[in-house]
């Protein structure tokens, strides 16, 4: 049985697609057969971040409308044999997504023996976002340390508890909070909400804190999921997040302002 995980946030630009790409890649590199689906119909992005935009032939909507089968549309990742990407359509609009269609695609992937199916949700609370979360077993809620992002995440948490198949059956989705673009220095100076404040407002178990890092933008632009970059703090934090998701106990890192060592203080750094 596949485990279906939605990566969602409500607000746009907080790092859902970056997270989906890193998450799916991390799971695949740990040996799990993983599919990642871009639900942002009309604003295709995931393929760019995964670096497979030139290999898109068929997309999610083609599969839903029966113009292609799932095997034709899945793009195998260059870096891992376990990872497959189902891109969104850039030309169709979101009305082409139907609940029955989404259910069928998820069923096909389950029958195909996928361990994890990651659903990269679009921003907002409209159709695309609603369908991305509908069949999920788990939700990763991506939040920036900023009041409007936290408010939107709260709204999404409400929808996860009321509008999903699990909720309709009286069960509940497992919720995981992932804070991204966290800058301890700006928290210390009071510009940014602290992790504790976000947890206080949202009251959801924390699964990871990804520090603000230039390597995220660099990774996106070069089409390499940031988790591949073992040097960067963001890459390491994403790796911790994946391990926690798989049940390991990993302490949180990158929460404190980095102290400059004696060497750096003497010679600058």
């Amino acid at each position, binding site marked *: 049985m596949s485990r279906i995980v939605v990566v969602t946030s409500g607000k746009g630009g907080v790092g859902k697609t970056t997270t989906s790409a890193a998450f799916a890649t991390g799971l695949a590199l740990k040996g799990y057969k993983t599919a990642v689906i871009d639900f942002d119909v009309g604003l295709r992005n995931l393929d760019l971040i995964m670096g497979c935009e030139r290999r898109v032939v068929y997309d999610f909507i083609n599969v839903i409308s029966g113009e292609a089968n799932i095997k034709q549309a899945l793009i195998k990742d260059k870096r891992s044999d376990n990872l497959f990407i189902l891109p969104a359509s850039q030309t169709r609009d979101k009305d082409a997504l139907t609940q029955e269609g989404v259910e069928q695609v998820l069923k096909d992937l389950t029958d195909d023996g996928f361990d994890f199916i990651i659903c990269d949700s679009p921003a907002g609370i409209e159709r695309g976002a609603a369908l991305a979360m509908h069949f999920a077993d788990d939700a990763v809620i991506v939040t920036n340390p900023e009041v409007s992002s936290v*408010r*939107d995440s*709260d*709204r999404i*948490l*409400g*929808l996860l*508890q*009321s509008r999903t198949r699990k909720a309709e059956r009286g069960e*509940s989705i497992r919720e995981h909070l992932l804070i991204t673009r966290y800058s301890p220095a700006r928290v210390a100076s009071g510009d940014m909400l602290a992790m504790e404040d976000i947890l206080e*407002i949202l*009251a959801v178990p924390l699964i990871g804190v990804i520090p603000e890092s230039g390597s995220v933008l660099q990774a996106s632009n070069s089409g390499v999921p940031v988790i591949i970059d073992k040097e960067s703090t963001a890459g390491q934090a994403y790796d911790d997040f994946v391990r926690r998701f798989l049940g390991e106990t990993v302490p949180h890192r990158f929460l404190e302002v980095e102290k400059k060592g004696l060497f750096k203080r003497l010679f600058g750094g």
Partner: protein
Amino acid sequence: MKKQVFDLKGEMSLLTVLVLHSTDRHAISASLEEKQQQASQFLARSPIIIDCQLLGESGLELNFAELKMSLGKVGFVPVGLRNLVEAAEPSAIEAGWALLRPSKQQVSQNPPPPTEVNLELEQPSSVQRLLVLDRPVRSGQQVYCPHGDIVVLQHTSAGSELLAGGSVHVYGALRGRVLAGVQGDTQARIFCERLEAELIAIAGRYRLLDDIESNLKGQAVMIYLDQEKLKIVPI
């Protein structure tokens, strides 16, 4: 000197709003009767507003006298019509309907418009006296217990709304809007472990937390109605 026999006041009350999708009188009375069978006590004697916005020009085709009758038959007390196309207004008035101003035209000093309650959401088979929620009430969620108390074992979020016919208890931070005694019960009270609400109301008397003495914010408090005034006291 003449003794004053009444006060005339503008007040906020919670009303059920029926949003008409069709002017077909048979279809309307049929669905009303169906609703009544599902939730007769819920509807009993509740005042109701009819919203005609979705009808547009076709509002002219409504038979207003008959609409009033079918509502009365299932136990509603019709209060008035709103968002009715202008050309249909004379016949509505003739049938004895009040016309309500569309909510958006209300000036800001006026009380907020009545909260709309979606009939689809609430179909209790018997009157619910108590609603206990063991999860946080999130932004955008509305919880309505028309004839009982609401108890929340967690916090409520900014942008959420609790509406209770009776009292409200929140064992955590209260951050959203909270309206107790929405059917007019002036004995209803609000209790919370940490007061951070945006708006509090009991039996239609409301206050924004902005106006409230800041030393009570973040405190465990009880809110009750003393004559006409909302009183907030630490507990």
